[in-house]
């Protein structure tokens, strides 16, 4: 019965993935600003339920993300495992901070995530568009308060600890 409640975690990740693969008829320069919703949602759950949403969770989420994004298997996996690992060491100190400070923390983690993905692309000889890769994390940071509030309400409704 209690396992069933954790469905909301998976559902929220599915919704995040939907947001990422939704084809929007936007010009190229706007596409770059689309945030990594999956990383954002995963970060929330890793802060709220650190015992449930850990490294293995990040690993499998990364695999799904790699498949849906057409990147090398392991690329997003590596990035997500690393930022979730960082978060596991810091979340105690973070969730007492003010929202604005949390946003900066989230920005840094999303940027690390993006840097790792871009770094692997660079190794494979695809020149990443410089400067533009901080766009996604920036927009992701601006959405963090909403993601946080929405997921917190969902978590309270589902009584997840």
């Amino acid at each position, binding site marked *: 019965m209690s396992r069933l409640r954790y469905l909301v975690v998976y559902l929220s990740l599915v919704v995040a993935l939907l947001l990422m693969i939704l084809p929007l*008829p936007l010009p190229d320069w706007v596409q770059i600003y689309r945030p990594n919703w999956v990383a954002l949602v995963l970060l929330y759950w890793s802060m709220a339920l650190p015992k449930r949403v850990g490294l293995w969770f*990040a690993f499998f989420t990364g695999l799904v993300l790699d498949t849906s994004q*057409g*990147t090398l298997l392991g690329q997003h996996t590596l990035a997500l495992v690393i930022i979730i690992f960082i978060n*596991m060491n810091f979340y105690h100190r973070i969730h007492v901070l003010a929202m604005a400070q949390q946003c900066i923390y989230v920005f840094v983690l999303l940027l690390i995530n993006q840097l790792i993905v871009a770094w692997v692309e660079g190794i494979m000889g695809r*020149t990443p568009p410089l400067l533009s*890769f901080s766009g996604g994390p920036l927009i992701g940071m601006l959405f963090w308060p909403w993601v946080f509030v929405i997921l917190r309400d969902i978590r309270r409704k589902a009584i997840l600890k």
Partner: protein
Amino acid sequence: MKTLLQARGASLKALFLVVISITMMVVDHRFHHLEVVRTNISLALSPLRYLVSLPVTGGSWVGDWFTSHTDLLNENAALKAEGRILNARLQKLEILAEENERLRSLLGSARKIADDVIVAELLSVDQNPYRQLIEINKGSSDGVEIGHAVIDDFGVMGQVIHVNPQSATTILISDPEHAIPVQFVRSGTRSVAFGRGSTSQLELRYLPATADIKIEDELVTSGLGGRFPPDYPVARVTEINEDRVRGFVTVFAQPKARLDSSREVLVIKPRQ
């Protein structure tokens, strides 16, 4: 002490997963053993892809529902008129095609005029800014195979690089890893057009400075390399950069296909 051990355990686990990730990347880049994993996850994700394409399909359905009677009548009349004109043109085209075939047989070359096509729809667009990939809703069960060319009503879009039973991944001609053999219609010069990661520009490198190229020249597939069928429109020349020192010309061209907005595409099956 216990927390210390726990912390060390987490670090070890993280390290282990990092090593696995890197190994997977290397294996995925060099070999094809991980295609199975990719295909299975992709299969599990296919309902999501359909869900994602729903708003657009649903939107057009609702739009159809609310179209007024007069609009429909007008549209019907316009379509009929267009149909008549197209029919007339088609007759002419058939005669020309026959003539072309006859001339070709006279010349002794056996080039096929028509190819088999599969109509497909766009399921999703890859968000990765370094790649230009799209997902279409026809797969191996519909006869789509790796290497098939994909076009829209304006020109060549790309080629299939991965097939699942119900969907296929297509690399666009604008992907930085993609190159397509082309030919200038006016002068017949052959070249290769490279993607640059932007849907509005292809690049033709190292053309001889003496080549006969002008702005607005049309590029079509040359059919060399055997991947793309010949004579499909690819791009139009927009910019010519001359490198006087090295004696080369770099040409930029805008793809004819609407790479970022086409929803209906055709997969071309080469006839055996």
